[in-house]
Every structure is written in C-alpha cells, then in structure tokens.
C-alpha cells in the first residue's frame, strides 16, 4: 500500500463525513450525532469559561472514530481503484481498424466503436474492444488482464473465440465483431464495481446491518433511560459520560469495517483474477454445496496420452513397441505423438519409416491410422472393434486374450488402442486421460469446506467411474450431453443445493445462467461470459476453489468482527459504568476492579481503545480471516476462542495500558 493510496483514502474519509453518507450505517449515525453533541457541549463549556479539556478530548476521539471508519471504507475502495487503474491503463488511446460493409478499412478511435461493428486486428496490435472473432485465428497475449505472459490461442467458430479489449495480438490476423461498446465492456463493468460507484449491499450485509441497528437501539435505550433512574435516587449523570457509554457500547468496530469487508471481498476475488459481476455472487460462493465440473480440461488435460504398452501373450514387448512406433510416426494427433514419446521414455530405439511407406490417416469410416508399404506391410492402430473388423477382413486371427485385455484397460478409465501388423495382432497401447496434478487435493479441500464435486463427462460409465475414483470427485455423470448440465443443475437446486459450475462454451450458457455461481472462462465465448456471474481471466476452472474461499472468508470476517465487537463491550462496561457512577455511588468502585484511578481518564481510555481498534483491524478486514479446511464445529470453536473470548480479554488489557499511559502523561 503506497502513500498515494493512503493520502487519497484520508481525504475520501473526510468527504464521507457528510450527513448523506453518515445515514448509510445506523451505528455510525449514532456516533455522528454523538460527536456533534459532544462538540456542542464543548463549545458551551468554553463559552461559560468552565474547564473543557475532557469534553474536547471526547469530541476529538469521537470524531476520529468516525473518521477511522470512513478511512477503512475509503482505503478498501482506493485499493480496488488501484487494481482497476492498472487495468484501465491498458485501454487508453486504442485505435481500431473499422471494417465497413464494403470491406474497406478505416481508422477510428476505440471509443467510437459500437456493438456489431467489425474490426480487423493484426499481429502487434491491441484488440480495441470486447468482441468475438468471426474470422481467423490468432495467438493473443492477455497479460494485461491476467498477468500471465504465455500466449493463448483464439479462433473463430470455437468455444475460444472471445477477445478482450486491451490484449495484444501476437500472431495472425482476425476479424472481430464488437460485442460491447466503449464503457460497457467487462472491464468497464468491473472497474465500476471495484470503484464502488454502484456497489450495493449484499443480502447478508443487509441482514447484519439490521441486527447491528437493533443492538444499537437496545444500547441507546439502556443508556437513555439511565438519567431517569438515577434522578430517582438523586444522582445527576454527566451527559458526556453517557455519550461515551453509548458510543463504546454500540458495535462501532464491525459497523465501521463492514463496508470495507465487502469491498475487500471483491478485491480479493479480483486479486485471484476473477471478475465477480456483483458482491452477491462472491457472497453466494461461500455457500456452494455442489460443484459441477467438466471432466475434459478441468479435471484432466483433455488430450489422451499413451501411458502403457500391453503386449498380447506370445508377443515380445519390443515387437509391440516397434509396431506402435511405426504406425504413429506420421500421426499428427497428440495421441500419436504421445506414443512416440512414451517409447522414447521407456528407452526403445527410434524407428524410421520405410522409404516407400504411405501414411494412412485416421478417418471416421475406418477409425484406423498407420502405415502401409509397397511390399504389403501394414502397421495399424485403432479402436478394438475397428481393428477386429480390419483383421477379420484380412483373415488375421483375433486372439482370445485380446478382448479381456481391452476391457481391463477400459475399466481403468483409459482408452485401449489395438496395434496390429499384416500378420498378427500385437497388443494394446493404453491411452489415458491424464489427470491434472493437484486436482485430487483440491477436491479434498473442497470436501472439507462442504462442497460436493460432480464430474460431468461424455465418457462411458466405466471410464468415467475410473477417472472419478482417481480424481476423488464425489459423484459423476457419464455419457452426458451438453444440455444435461442444465437438467442436472435444476435437479440439484430442487434438492435445495446451491450449485456452481464452470463453463466456456456457448452451449454452457444456459447452465451458467441457471447455476447459483456460474464461473465463465475468459477464453470462452461471449455468450458464456454474459451468462455467468463471474469471469475467470486466467481461464482456470479450478479457480472456483479460490472463489469459494473468498466467499467464506467474507462471511467469516463479518462474523468474527461482529463477535469481537460485542465481546469488547464487557470490558468497556467495567470501565465506563463505574466511572459514570463513581462520584454519586462510591460503593460502585468495586466494579472498577481494573483499578483505573481517574473516572474521566478511564472513559477517555475506553473511547481511545474504541477508536483505535478500527484502524488496527483494517488489515484483517482487507485480508480476511484466514480459512482452513477443518470441520464446521472446529472452525466455530477456533473463531469463538479468538474473536469471542479474545474479544472479551483484549480490551481489559489494552484499556488498562492506555489508562496507565494517559495517567503518566497528564
């Protein structure tokens, strides 16, 4: 946090002192009125020539209580703005090459673009506006958004056709259809959000505000009725002391930090490169019960790779590997390449294709690929039934051991590729969908947070089950069509669960919209991004874990500081109540077991503590209470111990210390 942010926030904290701002929080409004009253009393005392030191000190501390609360909000906003500014910087002075209907190009400022316009972007240029590629393919550097320098591939007509203003095209030329006018792009929306200009209180924040307002009213009544009770026994109570009592009792700590906690939650999501379209979405993320994940690209890398060679009985390993290598030599698919890679890894010699060999490419009809030579030599690989048909047509025997071997591989969640030559069937290459490292641990963490993971895949149930077991998901849906996701979400929601899903394709859009938290990949289509309520700039599906944590942190921070704020009151009572009655009821001194010698200094100490605890907790409010994957009961116990019982004890010590210092100074 730099000095510029601090200065900016300090000034903003003054601006927030206006009555229109003050009424937003009922708790702080009471402090606001109390400050005015105290100032008024001070002025009166000055005018009458009485000693006004105590009154002035009270007024100043009250003022700072207000200011600190405003400062907390301002600093959260300033930090959000800081993040937004750096994003904005990438958008300045962009020009676009507008493509008119007759196909001619003209230079216009990016701010002139309208939705529906088509622009041409070439290598080395900035993308001038959010849009969708309608022609061409390009590699794009999105580091301005994501901080990730590795370029990403964007192509028309795929699920990865979206481009974002401010990113750079590294290679290729694309035609982009603008989807958002200047000022209405995702970035603009996000910048407005983090700037807090249209920040709305989230449902839980509203509920908590109501509770805090009710508590404030309770304390106001408790203190306001005191003079009447006291006057019955002939005790006059000091108005300043009563104001101090009210301000110390009402939950100023949580009320002062509440807006900051909400803004910081959004900021933290942004820090994880997730744009939440509303604070509500972040809050809901903490409640997610079920998480729907596509298998491909999320749990697994999505491209199947060779992981094992399994020769048939009577066939040497080297024979199988040689066959596998030969039929993959000219295979351009990732699967084919992985066969060569595995052979190399396992120390087999490289093969070269016979001079006159011809490559048989994979076709939907044959479902085979390999090599054929003039001399009638064949090396092919393919799915079991395809190879079986091929072998039978050529009169090659299909050994009985093949089918069990193929089934075994399939049961492990892998895809068997059968390898054969012109004489016999050699064995099987096991192609596995490789599970991303660390995925199982993440799911375990999610499970500890109470989130059930459901994998959705088009695979058959056997393969899906095997992958589900290895990845550690709680449930899976096999042979799913894209539209099944929507049904699944509805079914889960009907059971009362809150569902989150990750998606990037246009056919994911309805499901993203239906889900309680729809996290769209930035690399995905515009439709998907419009439908979701969050966009992940890194396009990392496992990011949802971070989002769930941010949501939970947000709520925990609110709860912890509410508890802390209320627990603090116990100590404050033991400071102020004896002070209020000290003169009239000497016996009450027994309540003053903290041994604070001077009533006025004691009250000032409590007020100072009350004011200083707000800035002291700003870092916690901005960072959020740390969350660990432990059971709900343990979490509650820990937080009760720290913020509940800690909240009772801390002010006793702190106020005593402040009091000692004050007494020493005065």
């Amino acid at each position, binding site marked *: 946090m730099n000095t510029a942010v601090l200065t900016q926030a300090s000034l903003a904290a003054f601006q927030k002192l206006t009555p229109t701002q003050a009424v937003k929080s009922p708790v702080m409004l009471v402090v606001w009125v109390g400050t005015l009253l105290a100032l008024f009393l001070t002025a009166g005392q000055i005018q009458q020539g009485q000693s006004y030191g105590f009154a002035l000190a009270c007024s100043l501390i009250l003022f700072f209580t207000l200011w600190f609360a405003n400062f907390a909000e301002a600093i959260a906003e300033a930090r959000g703005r800081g993040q937004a500014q750096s994003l904005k910087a990438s958008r300045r002075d962009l020009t676009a090459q507008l493509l008119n209907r007759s196909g001619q190009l003209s230079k216009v400022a990016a701010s002139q673009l309208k939705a529906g316009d088509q622009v041409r972007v070439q290598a080395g240029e900035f993308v001038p506006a959010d849009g969708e590629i309608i022609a061409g393919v390009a590699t794009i550097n999105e580091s301005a958004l994501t901080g990730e320098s590795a370029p990403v591939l964007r192509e028309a007509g795929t699920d990865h056709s979206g481009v974002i203003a401010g990113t750079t095209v590294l290679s290729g030329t694309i035609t982009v259809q603008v989807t958002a006018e200047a000022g209405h792009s995702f970035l603009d929306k996000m910048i407005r959000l983090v700037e807090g200009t249209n920040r709305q209180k989230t449902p839980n924040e509203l509920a908590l505000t109501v509770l805090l307002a009710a508590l404030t009213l309770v304390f106001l009544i408790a203190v306001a009725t005191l003079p009447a009770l006291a006057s019955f*026994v002939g005790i006059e109570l000091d108005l300043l002391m009563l104001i101090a009592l009210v301000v110390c009792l009402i939950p100023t700590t949580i009320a002062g930090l509440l807006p900051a906690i909400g803004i910081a939650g959004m900021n933290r999501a942004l820090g994880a490169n997730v744009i939440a379209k509303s604070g509500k979405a972040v809050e809901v993320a903490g409640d997610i019960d079920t998480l729907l994940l596509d298998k491909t690209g999320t749990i697994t890398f999505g491209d199947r790779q060779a992981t094992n060679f399994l020769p048939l009985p009577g066939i040497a390993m080297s024979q199988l590997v040689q066959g596998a290598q030969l039929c993959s030599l000219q295979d351009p698919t990732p699967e084919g390449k992985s066969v060569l890679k595995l052979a190399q890894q396992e120390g087999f010699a490289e093969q070269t294709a016979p001079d006159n060999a011809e490559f048989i490419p994979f076709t939907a009809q044959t479902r085979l690929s390999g090599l054929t030579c003039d001399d009638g030599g064949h090396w092919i690989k393919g799915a079991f039934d395809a190879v079986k048909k091929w072998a039978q047509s050529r009169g090659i025997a299909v050994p009985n051991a093949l089918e069990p071997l193929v089934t075994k591989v399939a049961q492990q969640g892998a895809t068997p590729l059968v390898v054969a030559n012109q004489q016999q069937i050699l064995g099987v290459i096991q192609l596995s969908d490789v599970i991303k490292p660390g995925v199982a641990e993440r799911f375990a963490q999610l499970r500890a947070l*109470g989130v059930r993971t459901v994998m959705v895949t088009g695979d058959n149930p056997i393969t899906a089950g095997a992958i589900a077991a290895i990845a550690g998901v709680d449930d899976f849906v096999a042979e799913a069509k894209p539209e099944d996701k929507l049904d699944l979400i509805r079914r889960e929601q009907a059971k009362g669960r809150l569902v989150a899903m990750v998606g990037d394709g246009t056919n994911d859009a309805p499901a993203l919209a239906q889900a309680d938290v729809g996290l769209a990949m930035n690399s995905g289509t515009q439709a998907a991004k419009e439908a979701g309520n969050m966009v992940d700039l890194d396009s990392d599906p496992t990011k949802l874990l971070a989002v769930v944590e941010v949501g939970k942190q947000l709520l925990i921070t609110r709860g912890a500081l509410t508890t802390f704020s209320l627990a603090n009151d116990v100590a404050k009572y033991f400071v102020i109540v004896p002070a209020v009655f000290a003169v009239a009821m000497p016996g009450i001194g027994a309540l003053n077991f903290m041994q604070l010698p001077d009533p006025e200094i004691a009250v000032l100490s409590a007020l100072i503590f009350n004011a200083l605890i707000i800035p002291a907790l700003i870092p916690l409010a901005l960072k959020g209470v740390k969350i660990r994957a432990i059971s709900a009961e343990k979490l509650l116990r820990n937080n009760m111990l720290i913020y509940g019982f800690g909240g009772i004890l801390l002010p006793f010590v702190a106020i005593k210390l402040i009091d000692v210092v004050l007494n020493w100074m005065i």
Partner: protein
Amino acid sequence: MEIMLILTLSLLLAWPLGVYMTGIFSGQAHWSDRLFGPLERGIFKVLGINQQQGMDWKSFGIAFLLSNLLLGVIAFLLLMLQHLLPLNPDGVGPLSWDLALHTAVSFLTNTNQQHYSGQAQLSFLSQSFVIVTLQFVTPAMGLAVCLGVLRGLLGGRNQATAQEGEARDLGNYYQDTVRAVLRLMIPLAAIVALALSSQGVPSTYQPSPTVSVLEQGQSLTEQKIPLGPVAAMVAIKQLGTNGGGWYGPNSANPLENPTPLSNLIETIALVLIPIAVVFMAGGMLRQRGFALMSLGVMGFLSLLCVAAAVYSEQQPNIAFAELAQSSGNMEGKEVRFGTDLSALWATLTTQTSNGSVNAMHDSLNPLAGLVTRSGMLINAIWGGIGCGFVNFIVYVWIAVFIAGLMIGRTPEIFGRKLEKAELSALGVLLVLPSAVILLFTAITLSFPALIGNSNPGLHGISQVFYEYTSAFANNGSGFEGLADNTPWWNITCVIVLLLGRYLPLVIPLYIAGMLAKKRQIPPSAASLPLANVTFGVTLLTVILILNFLSFLPSMVLGPIGEGLAESHIETISQQTSAITTQLQSVTGGAQ
C-alpha cells in the same frame, strides 16, 4: 440435598412427559386418541371448527389473537359483574375497572400478576371460572404457538408436497390448544390436586369458617379463614406456569403449601412441563441432539442460578450486617422451608415465568434478587409453557446468525436461511424487552407520586424495575412492598403484559412461517452443527452477553448498586467502630 432430589425428580418425570406430548401433538395416531378423541370431536362439533384444517402462520396467529381477545372480554366482564353473579357466598364486591382489566389481562397472558388480594376480592365464580379457566387455557395456547413454530422450523406439515415459497401448514391452533388442555393440563392437574389434598390443602366450596384466635387480643377475637377449591387451583397455578395463588401470600401460606412433601410436589410442578417441552421439541423436530443441547444450556443456566440464589440466602440479611447474626437470610421466608428451598423456589419460579412464591422476593439478598431478575429477563431458562421455548428459539436464531457467519456460510437453521426479513423481525424482539421494561421504569420513576413504593433509594428502583420485568416476562411474581392497585400501575402493566405476551409469540410464528417456505438446504459437512458443546457454549454466551449488555446499567442502579453500597457501608461502619474503639481507649487512657 433436597434441592438435588427435586431437580433430579423433575428431570426424570419431564422426560416421559415430553415423549407423551410428542405423541399427542405429532399428528400420528396415539393411544390417547381412544380416551379423548370422542370428547374432542364433540367439542369441535359444538364450536363448529374443523380440527384437521391446516393453518399457515397468518391464520394460526389470527386464531391465537382472536381467541385471546374473546376470552379476555369474557373474563373482564365476569370480573366487573362478579357481585351480581352467583357463587359469591362471601358477598365480595365488584373490582374497579382498571383492576378488573389488569386482572383479566394478567391471567389471559399466563402471567398472573396480582394487584388484588385473591381470597378477599374475588368471588368463587371469579376464582373458578375466570382465574382457573384461564390458568388451564392460556398455557395450552402458548404451547400451541410453540408447536406452530416448531412445525415451521421443519417446513410445516405440508413440507413434502409444498413448493418453495408456498405457504406452510403449521398445524391447527384449535386442535393443539384443546389437546393441550384435555390431554395434558387437566390430567396432570388432577393428579397434583389429589396429591396436595392428601397433604391438607383445602378443597371445598363451603363459605369461610370463623374461628376464635388463639391469642385473644383487644381488637381481634375472631378470624374468618377463607377456604375454597384451593388444591385444584394450586395444582394448575404451579403446573401451568401461572403463579396466581388462592391466597395473597401464595404458596408461603400454610393452607396453600402445608408440608415438606407439598412443597416438593409444588416445586416439581413448577418446572415439570417447561422441561418436558424441551423433550417434546426434540421429538417434534426429530432432533435428539438439538434437544440435548437445549437441555444442557437451560440446565446449566438453571443450576448456576439456583446455586447463586441458595448461596445468597445462606448469607445473613444485608440489613443485619452489623449484628452478630450467622444464620441465613430468613426475612420474608417461612421457617418451615428455610433458606435453601425458598431460594430454589424463587429461582425456578422466575425462570419458568410462573411467579408463584413461597417466600417474599422483596426480602431476598441482592445476589438472589439479581438471579430472580435475570431469570425473568432471559425468560428462556425453561420459561413459560410454550413461550419459554419460543424465546429460546429466538436466542438460537440470533446465535445461529452469528455462529453461521463465523463458519463462512450464510446463516441457516435446519437448512433454511436467515435473511433480512427474519433479522428485521428478530431485531424487533431484541429491542422489545429493553424498550418496554426500561422505558416504563424510567417514566414511572420520573413521577415518584405514581409509584407508591415502600422503599426509597435503590431498592425503590428495584421494585419498579421488578414489577415491569415480571409483567413483561409474563412471570407475575411480585417484589411486594409496592402499592400496585392504582390506575397507573394497572394500566401500564396491562400495556406491558400485552406487549410481553403477544409480540414475543406472534413474531417468532411469523419468522417460522417465513423460514418454512424457504428452500431447504440438505445438511453437509459445512453446515453449522447445533448439537454439540461448541454451539451450546456459543448460545450460552449470546444469551448472557445480550442480557448483560441490555440491562447492566439499570442493574447497577438496582441490586448491584444495593449490594455494593451495602458492602461499602459495611466497611465504613467497621472503620468507624475501629476509630471509636481507638478513641475510647485514648480517652480511657486520659482518665
């Protein structure tokens, strides 16, 4: 020893009773149907009510309010016209309109705060029909609302078929009330009444006999001993968390509470149904763990208070601090019961919103005074029948909101989220006690002419505070020493009584109705578990801190101030006497 016996017996008896109550209210066929079914069907036929008709929170609440209004009007008229009506062998006159209104409302709200002196101002008709009828019916009504709230917590009786957002069936108010009277209150009262009669509590409709007094003084040679169906009334006043006795001094009077055994029976009867409601709630909610947690929290608070009160009364009366008196505080107590049993009764009667007494609370030492007041302010340590558990649920909701946040989820109870609408209603309930009790106390104290209390100073504040607290908590116990039969006291207490009865029952019903129709989230590892020590401690802390924060300042100007001021005086007087001795020795030396 006797205290442990009484508490253990209460718990052991409450358990099967709670199971029985679950049986009669859960809507399933029950063996008691054969006994009471025909009678109930007859009653509903006469009343023209379909007892199977489900009610949502609104119709349930309206039925509750309207039936109370009707009963209230009848009770008021009977009290106003008692001198014209039969069953008045002693020829007692009519009550003033404000006293009649206060008495009607007081019994209607299951409070039984008495600004009249029972045997002298009420006819047999008033006692039997107004007082006793209300004593049977009003706890049943409170229980009915509690049942409505409990059903709401689980989504209502139509949970299985209703859509999200659809109004939920919280049961039938009339069926619950009638069953509670017929199957619960009447049989239990009969058993207790018989037991008390066996101990010598009067049970007769004969006019009061006149006897010659033993010590023939100048002014008094004969005395009329008021009798009546005392045993029956004492039974229901104890069982129904009512508290209004036949005689002014309540169960301190030997005719109401003659023997140690009768005292034991009456003390158990105080807490029996309120404890049984907790077991019943566990059965209705099908949440054994939650019931045990509730029992633990309430039991802990109850025992803590009993221990403090017993300790307090074993100390000498603070007024005798300077005297060489070592026995406990016997002022205002029956020698027959002694300090322990009186302290136990005082604690339980204020916790359960009963308000009957076997000793005078005005004379309790400050610590016990604090305990009795805390019992009423918390009003959920067992509490009144039905309403006590409803209050407890309100504390649970608040604790769930705070604890729920601390585990990182939008707070939910039994899978239903607490949101702004519910929190707003909870906010009203949170503010209500302080607003009503403290504002009325402050207003009354501002006009000392209105008070008519016997004590100046801090104890005077305590008396006023106690009276309104007792009214708001629908407790009805008196601090005594207050000339409370004045229009001011009668009317303000009526307002406090009504606010203290109907809002704390109808608002939770509304909250339960709102919660019931929400989407239910199935429990998962991340849900807040309510059935464990951690949540119990959280709840306990919430209950204590909320009450501590709301009422500490006013308590300082009451029992705390009194207690501390006395000990202060004590030290001063010790110092003074030390100085005097020194002076004497000095002057003695000079001679």
